[in-house]
């Protein structure tokens, strides 16, 4: 007969289970990591406790519930041994009133289920992680293999030369393209060191940059550099060097990728040569010359000196014109070859500037003698007869030599100086050298500048007219003035006619300038005729040779007289003897026409030119002005020069015989004045009386 077990404390399973679960939760809290909140853990353990209570209260012990509870704990990630330990303990405590055998059976089944599940779980997880590791490793291997395979394909197949070396410079791998490029076998290359590839043309910077790579301070480097081919010729390359580091970031390998650019390099070199050399003579051209000159002027020490010989073949145009351009060209080729052979060398560059002009650049000159020696050698070289196409041609050259410090000059200034100096050599008669003279050059430059600025100065009104009194010797009364032009130059101040009239005559500016002076003077004279009619002075104005020969001079004078309203009798025109006499030795027709307009005509600077009295008789001339050089003879410290005095006396006598008045110029002392008065001279001018003055400073 079956007897019901006595009612126990677990006869109301739900509440009992909750109670057990609470104690259980407390005891295992924190022993394992589970992803459940506190409430969830409580519910979870309650359901487990329910099953355990069922096992406890069952009539016959059935291990499966307890066994499964053990497995369920593990499945919920209660995987730490402490959890089992605390579970066994809490069950012993909670089930204290139950039959000890049954409690032990339940604990045993739970532990067995727990152990089995934990064993399975560990084996599963280990399986999983090993699989993952194997997979990851396989992927890595695969990636490595395929990258290695890709690298191999690139390394072997590329047309670029590739080399890998250790950072110590030992080559460990080279490809076929690299071997072919340099003409070595792989074995030969691998036995070499990176330093064996240094080329003498490699710059020190390149060495530093390479050292920075191997030291890990730099990752990449790209440059052009030459290598020696096994057979000795240079192989020009564009090379990229990269650093490869190991996993700890330490420099490990250096990879070089090398492109053969020899063809391009040679082409560039040839193009550069062409750009810098003259195709006819093969000499360096002006570009190269100026490049070198510029470098020298810039980079050399300031106390260093330099020399330039500017050479021009004399009369080359004639040769070209008479014998033809072919022969001219051959001549230039011969001259170039000879100059190159005899003069070119270290520190001496011969270049063709163009046409028949050559230049020698002497670097690091020690003085003028150095450069003159080179110039003389060049002259000798050119003087040797040249045989061209059956002609024996003797030629010569002129050379301008400049020798100076590199400091304080520019290529343009230096070459201008050389050009000017060459011109001097030509002007001095060719077939010679001229040495640059800074003072002469400066003067010429100033003159040139003055001359060039004169037309604009006339426009701007920088010229003005002053008047020098003409004094009647018999009573000292001022009876006239000579109009003298002045230039108020913005930089040089007021300049007298000596400084610019010569240039104005050369350039032709004298025509408008003379017209300006005549107009100004006539205006002033007309004013005096109006304001002081009884004392109005005679206005004497110079006409230059070029003015007189200019066809418009007669019309100009007529127009100005009309325009200013000047009574022509109050005007005197001064002409030099050379102006009066035409080219054919006959007086100018213009003279008669001028005279017909009414002014007096005076011969200026009489005694310095032709001085022929015979023509004076037939010309409409009313006066002479004695050149200052005669007057100067009357004031020498030892008393008047008797010869000069006699000449002056004779001139005065003859002039008076021809009914011409005589004016003495340049009177500076009372003694001169007194001698001239004694000799019967009519009028005088000069510092002794007055220098030139503006119109309002003059009184009559």
């Amino acid at each position, binding site marked *: 007969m079956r007897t019901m077990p006595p009612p126990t404390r677990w006869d109301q399973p739900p509440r009992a289970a909750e109670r057990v679960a609470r104690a259980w939760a407390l005891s295992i809290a*924190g022993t*394992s*990591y*589970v*992803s459940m*909140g*506190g*409430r969830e853990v409580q519910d979870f353990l309650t359901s487990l406790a329910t099953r355990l209570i069922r096992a406890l209260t069952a009539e016959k012990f059935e291990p499966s519930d307890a066994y499964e509870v053990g497995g369920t704990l593990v499945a919920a*990630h209660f*995987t*730490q041994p402490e959890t089992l330990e605390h579970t066994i303990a809490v069950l012993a405590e909670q089930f204290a009133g139950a039959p000890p055998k049954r409690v032990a059976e339940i604990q045993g089944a739970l532990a067995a289920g727990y152990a089995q599940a934990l064993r399975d*779980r*560990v084996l599963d*997880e*280990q399986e*999983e*992680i090993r*699989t*993952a*590791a194997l*997979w*990851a*490793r396989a*992927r*890595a291997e695969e*990636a*490595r293999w395929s*990258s290695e395979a*890709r*690298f191999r394909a690139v390394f072997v197949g590329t047309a670029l030369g590739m080399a890998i070396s250790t950072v110590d410079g030992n080559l460990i791998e080279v490809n076929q393209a690299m071997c072919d490029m340099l003409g070595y076998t792989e074995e030969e290359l691998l036995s070499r060191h990176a330093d064996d590839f240094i080329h003498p043309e490699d710059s020190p910077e390149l060495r530093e940059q390479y050292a920075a790579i191997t030291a890990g301070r730099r*990752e990449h480097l790209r440059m052009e550099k030459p290598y020696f081919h096994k057979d000795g010729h240079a192989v020009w390359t564009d090379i990229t060097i990269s*650093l490869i*580091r190991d*996993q700890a*970031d330490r420099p490990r390998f250096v990879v070089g990728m090398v492109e053969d650019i020899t063809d391009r390099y040679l082409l560039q070199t040839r193009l550069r040569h062409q750009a810098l050399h003259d195709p006819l003579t093969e000499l360096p051209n002006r570009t190269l010359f100026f490049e070198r000159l510029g470098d020298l002027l810039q980079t050399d020490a300031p106390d260093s000196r330099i020399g330039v010989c500017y050479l021009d073949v004399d009369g080359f145009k004639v040769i070209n014109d008479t014998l033809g351009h072919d022969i001219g060209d051959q001549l230039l080729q011969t001259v170039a070859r000879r100059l190159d052979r005899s003069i070119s060398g270290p520190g001496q560059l011969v270049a063709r500037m163009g046409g028949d002009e050559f230049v020698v650049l002497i670097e690091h000159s020690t003085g003028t003698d150095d450069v003159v020696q080179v110039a003389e050698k060049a002259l000798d070289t050119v003087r040797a007869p040249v045989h061209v196409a059956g002609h024996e041609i003797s030629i010569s050259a002129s050379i301008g030599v400049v020798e100076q410090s590199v400091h304080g000059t520019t290529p343009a200034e230096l070459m201008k100086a050389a050009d000017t100096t060459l011109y001097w050599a030509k002007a001095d008669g060719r077939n010679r050298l001229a040495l640059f003279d800074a003072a002469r050059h400066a003067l010429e430059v100033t003159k040139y500048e003055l001359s060039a600025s004169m037309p604009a100065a006339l426009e701007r009104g920088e010229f003005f007219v002053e008047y020098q009194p003409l004094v009647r010797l018999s009573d000292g009364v001022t009876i006239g003035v000579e109009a003298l032009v002045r230039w108020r130059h913005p930089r040089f101040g007021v300049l007298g006619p000596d400084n610019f009239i010569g240039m104005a005559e050369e350039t032709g500016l004298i025509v408008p300038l003379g017209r300006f002076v005549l107009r100004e003077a006539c205006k002033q004279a007309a004013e005096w005729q109006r304001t002081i009619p009884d004392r109005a002075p005679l206005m004497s104005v110079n006409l230059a040779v070029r003015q007189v020969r200019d066809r418009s001079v007669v019309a100009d004078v007529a127009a100005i007289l009309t325009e200013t309203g000047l009574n022509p009798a109050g005007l005197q025109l001064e002409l030099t003897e050379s102006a009066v006499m035409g080219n054919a030795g006959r007086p100018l027709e213009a003279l008669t026409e001028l005279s017909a307009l009414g002014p007096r005509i005076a011969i200026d600077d009489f005694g310095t030119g032709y001085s022929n009295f015979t023509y004076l008789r037939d010309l409409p001339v009313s006066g002479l002005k004695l050149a200052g050089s005669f007057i100067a003879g009357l004031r020498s410290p030892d008393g008047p020069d008797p010869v000069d005095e006699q000449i002056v006396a004779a001139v005065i006598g003859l002039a008076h015989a021809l009914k011409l008045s005589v004016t003495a110029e340049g009177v500076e002392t009372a003694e001169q004045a007194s001698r001239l008065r004694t000799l019967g001279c009519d009028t005088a001018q000069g510092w002794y009386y007055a220098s030139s003055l503006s119109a309002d400073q003059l009184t009559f």
Partner: protein
Amino acid sequence: MERPSWAPEDVDLDRPSIARVYDYYLGGTHNFAADRAFAEAVLTATPEVRTAAIGNRAFLSRAVRYLSERGIRQFIDLGSGIPTAGNVHEVLRETSAGGGKVVYVDLDPVAVAHSRAILDGVPDAAVVAGDLRKPAEVLANPALRGVVDFREPVAIMLLAVLHFVTPEEHPEDIVAGYAAASVPGSYLVISHAGPVTGRALTDDEKKSYEAYRNSPTPVTLRSASEVEALFGDLTIIEPGVVPAARWRPDGPTDRLPEASMLVSAGIGRKD
């Protein structure tokens, strides 16, 4: 120098991996002898590290639930490691929303391989290999972009990983990089090792710290206020950066073990 893409990370099972060591802390057996030896050395000196790890894991679950309740449906778990249990996608499954999109990112190829295996067949989840220190690179990953729609808010999870980022690697810039890529309404979750108060380490803690210092993955410990600074412009939501166990706990926290003071945690929102 950047590792060339053709030179993959070595799979060296003789060196401890932080992912597998962490798994061991949590009672997992997805680990190898070298991992266990390293973990045991740390646990011997500082057994509370295990509690801290468990606390961190519990924070993850609460944070995911919290964000899910606020409508976040996309999660990027950076440095996800070996997901033993209670992973983001599992937590999401238990929420009222019933799921969400998750991308796990890890640098450890074994962790990635393992995640790939357990996520096989899981919809809306992906794992990508990537270095969380390079936000631009990670965010450009096509597999990641296949799951995450950046026009929608996203949660960026940086749990127990930023302490592996050294000051020289500028963790604040890394955080800012992820924040910049997200639309307003997105969240950024951080948990970080280090005495929360910034106090000095005990001798035992120093031992563990040195163990990590000498490993391939040294740690930089940061206090709560330093962690707060990592959030940059983001608005840190209540209760701020606090011990992980105190961050919106499920139950009473008045009797927290000392270990809970070893991890700071917080969430920032992009406004």
